[in-house]
């Protein structure tokens, strides 16, 4: 009888372990192999080993500049982005600022806006030639030089900082919301004013948590690819991630997979180091743990006269966020680009939308995208739920192995992972199909899925599953009837997250692109590059609209739920 039960569970675990090994370990091993292969060969060509690529990297002077750029880029955008996020999180979670529910919905819904689209919008706004804001400044103040330029390190930093804010906000607002109100009440009782409490109690208490958020965001920015690609390359500011891409997909010449892999390995090492410090920081903030369980809501600070100034500041941030979208919306209305003005409004039409929707390539891209996001999200959540179940409940070595392995992609930047996937599957029939994109997205999003589901399952009291077992239900029945229904909202939420990220991602579709597997994100990139400005703008708006329709209703519901009881 022991065998009977053990078999079904163990078999499932073995299948998962095998799947995850192929999915994650495969590309990583190929990456290491490729980084020590002689130039001009593919990783499977022979058995020769060389450290030439590493030697090249560490001896060439311009690589020092590359490292400097990357560091400056990541540090700058994270510092600015996390500071803004912390301020807004405090305003929405701990004060009576008007419009806080709306602000939270905006922040949580922002994952529907691809960084790619934001980048395009900013290029239209502040490019030195005919950027709309530059033109406005010229006309208003009579300037002869453009006021801003998109093609500089500081523009890249600022735009990335704005893009960092929503994710950082989601993490920091969680910290703020779970704070024990008694710590602040104690300060009130002992005579402190609101401002003093914020400065002397609230901020120091959340500081370790915010630091760990900052490290996490730093890791994300080092791995970021979209914005450095569309802004940084024109500005000639290469960072590590774009360097990896250019080496493996050069505009001219043959790809240098070896050198690119060596860069990739270094990037993995950097990310692993950051991940290690992230966990260290989390451990420190655990000691400051201000989360004391459920059943309370922190009291809100009454802002008094400061309510509206704070509201205006938050509103200004949202205007900055929406400006590039509005710019793209404008550009999508005119077959040939016009600067925003009231006179031009008379010529606005939806012709570009009709045109792109009539294009066979766009229709195919939309179909591909639907299949890609649905398949990726469903596979990721199914696999993650099982992996998380085994790592939370199982105590075997194999369960531990699967748990660690599924977390590993966090330390592998998507641009590196996708290059490794390219190397691994280049000569297989999968290459060039939509399936390789699905495989890529499953690989890079599985870490998110397992962490989300792990946290969700941890909250489910073990006795709930035990009770099913005692009642006579087998392992699978218990999972199907009790455990999974209980974590269903988390599964749905995670599924939606993967859908949004899979739809907006450019990294995987771009590197693995062939004529047969173009999706909306890669079609958008091609049209922009062509250039078909109005067509690209229309496609971008369609993509954002489609994602918003999916994401916003759920976020409104969730925000209402969490504001209740305040």
């Amino acid at each position, binding site marked *: 009888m022991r065998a009977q039960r053990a078999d079904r569970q163990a078999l499932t675990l073995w299948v998962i372990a095998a799947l995850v090994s192929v999915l994650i370990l495969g590309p990583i091993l190929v990456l290491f192999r490729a980084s020590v292969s002689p130039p001009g060969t593919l990783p499977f060509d022979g058995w020769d080993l060389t450290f030439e690529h590493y030697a090249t990297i560490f001896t060439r002077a311009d690589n020092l500049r590359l490292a400097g750029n990357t560091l400056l880029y990541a540090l700058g955008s994270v510092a600015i982005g996390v500071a803004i996020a912390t301020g807004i999180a405090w305003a929405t979670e701990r004060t009576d600022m008007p419009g806080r529910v709306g602000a939270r919905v905006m922040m949580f819904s922002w994952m529907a806006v691809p960084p790619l689209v934001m980048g395009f919008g900013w290029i239209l706004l502040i490019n030195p030639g005919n950027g709309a804001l530059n033109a406005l400044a010229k006309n208003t103040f009579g300037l002869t030089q453009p006021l801003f330029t998109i093609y500089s390190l500081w523009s890249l930093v600022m735009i990335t900082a704005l893009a960092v804010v929503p994710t950082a906000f989601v993490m920091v607002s969680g910290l703020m919301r779970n704070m024990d109100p008694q710590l602040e009440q104690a300060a009130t009782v002992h005579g402190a004013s609101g401002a003093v409490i914020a400065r002397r109690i609230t901020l120091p208490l959340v500081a370790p948590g915010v630091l760990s958020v900052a490290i996490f965001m730093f890791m994300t920015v080092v791995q970021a690819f979209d914005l450095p690609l569309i802004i940084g390359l024109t500005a000639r500011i290469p960072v590590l991630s774009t360097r990896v891409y250019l080496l493996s997909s050069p505009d001219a010449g043959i790809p240098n997979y070896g050198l690119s892999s060596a860069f990739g390995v270094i990037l993995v090492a950097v990310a692993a180091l950051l991940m290690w410090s992230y966990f260290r920081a989390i451990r420190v903030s655990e000691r400051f743990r201000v989360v004391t369980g459920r059943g309370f809501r922190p009291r809100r600070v009454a802002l008094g006269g400061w309510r509206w100034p704070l509201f205006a500041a938050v509103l200004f941030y949202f205007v900055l966020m929406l400006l590039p979208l509005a710019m793209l919306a404008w550009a999508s209305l005119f077959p040939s680009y016009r600067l925003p003005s009231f006179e031009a409004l008379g010529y606005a039409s939806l012709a570009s939308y009709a045109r792109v929707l009539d294009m066979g390539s766009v229709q195919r891209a939309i179909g591909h995208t639907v299949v890609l996001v649905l398949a990726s999200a469903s596979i990721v959540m199914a696999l993650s739920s099982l992996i998380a179940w085994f790592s939370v409940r199982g105590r075997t070595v194999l369960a531990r192995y699967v748990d660690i392995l599924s977390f590993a992609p966090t330390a592998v930047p998507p641009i590196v992972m996708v290059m490794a996937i390219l190397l691994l599957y280049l000569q297989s029939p999968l290459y060039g199909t939509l399936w390789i994109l699905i495989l890529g997205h499953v690989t890079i999003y599985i870490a998110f899925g397992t962490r989300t589901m792990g946290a969700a399952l941890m909250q489910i009291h073990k006795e709930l599953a035990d*009770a099913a077992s*005692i009642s006579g239900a087998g392992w699978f029945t218990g999972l199907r*009837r009790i455990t999974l229904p*209980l974590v269903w909202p988390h599964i749905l939420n995670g599924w939606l997250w993967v859908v949004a990220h899979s739809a907006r991602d450019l990294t995987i579709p771009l590197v693995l692109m062939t004529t047969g597997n173009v999706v909306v994100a890669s079609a958008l990139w091609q049209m922009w590059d062509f250039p078909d400005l109005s067509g690209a703008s229309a496609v971008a708006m369609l993509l954002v609209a489609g994602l918003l329709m999916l994401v916003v209703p759920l976020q409104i519901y969730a925000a209402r739920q969490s504001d209740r009881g305040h």
Partner: protein
Amino acid sequence: MLDKVSFDVAEGEFFTLLGPSGCGKTTTLQCIAGLEVPSAGCISMGGQTVFSSEQNLMVPANKRDLGMVFQSYAIWPHMTVFDNVAFPLIHGPRKAAKSEIASRVREALARVQLDHLAERPAPLLSGGQQQRVALARALVHAPRLLLLDEPLSNLDAKLRDVMRGELRVLVKSLGITTIFVTHDQVEAMSMSDRVALMRDGQIVQIGAPRDIYLRPTSAFTASFMGHSNMIAGTMQSMGVAETALGPLRIDGATQAVGAKVFVIARPQSAVLLRGAAGGGANRFPACIAGLNFVGDQIEIDADCGARHLRLVVDSYGDLQLGEQVMVELLRDRLVVVPHDASVG
């Protein structure tokens, strides 16, 4: 860590595992349930072996035909009361016929007086109602063994008193064999046929509640089961221990002469005499150093010179603070146990 835990439970018996937290009582119950796997040993139920390390046999929890009430009640929040209770009939090894399920669930709910709440979603139940649903779910499929893991500890004091009586009456009327885990000695004594007292993964004493309370065999049992005065001493001769209070005579003491012992004197084991003469066996003068009227009795702190004794008398006594009395420890109420440095 459990060590040499071995006991038999008779059919229809209400058996209790009692002990402080961390003593291994819940682990023992989980082993019986099949939720934990012991590293070695053997468990059998009604003649069927369900676990044996020698035969490499492990019947999983869902095949053991059990009912269990968990400490958290483990009521599934995504189901109604009816669905919760019907679960063992639908998914258990002894599935009920479709037509039968509704009537059996109603019957089980009626047993715990909840038949009017069948369609209520589980999260809308109070703590006491959840506990009853858990009980109905544990009994609906008429399991051969009912396991109760501290089912009363999450209820408020008044409800706990009511449920204590109801629970015992219910399982006794069904004649179902029950193993009950608790850290509360009052629950253990008032509900059980027999109690096994555990400490550090071992069973210290098994017996009827009365025996365990009145005839402890160790200092730990005496100190865990209610209040007692533990008077350190040395056996002087057969049935006489030399203590700080003088020689004490104890009926039925079998310890060897010279053995270091505790003489256990329950607060109820003494009589207080006013104006009586000194001398005589187990009799010594004392001063009333503390008086605490708690309603159903009076707690007294008696200063006997060499040490204080904690005693109780009934509420109608009119002793005064500072009064001089004679204390007599009744020899048939005293118990001698081996000295144990770990128990104060």
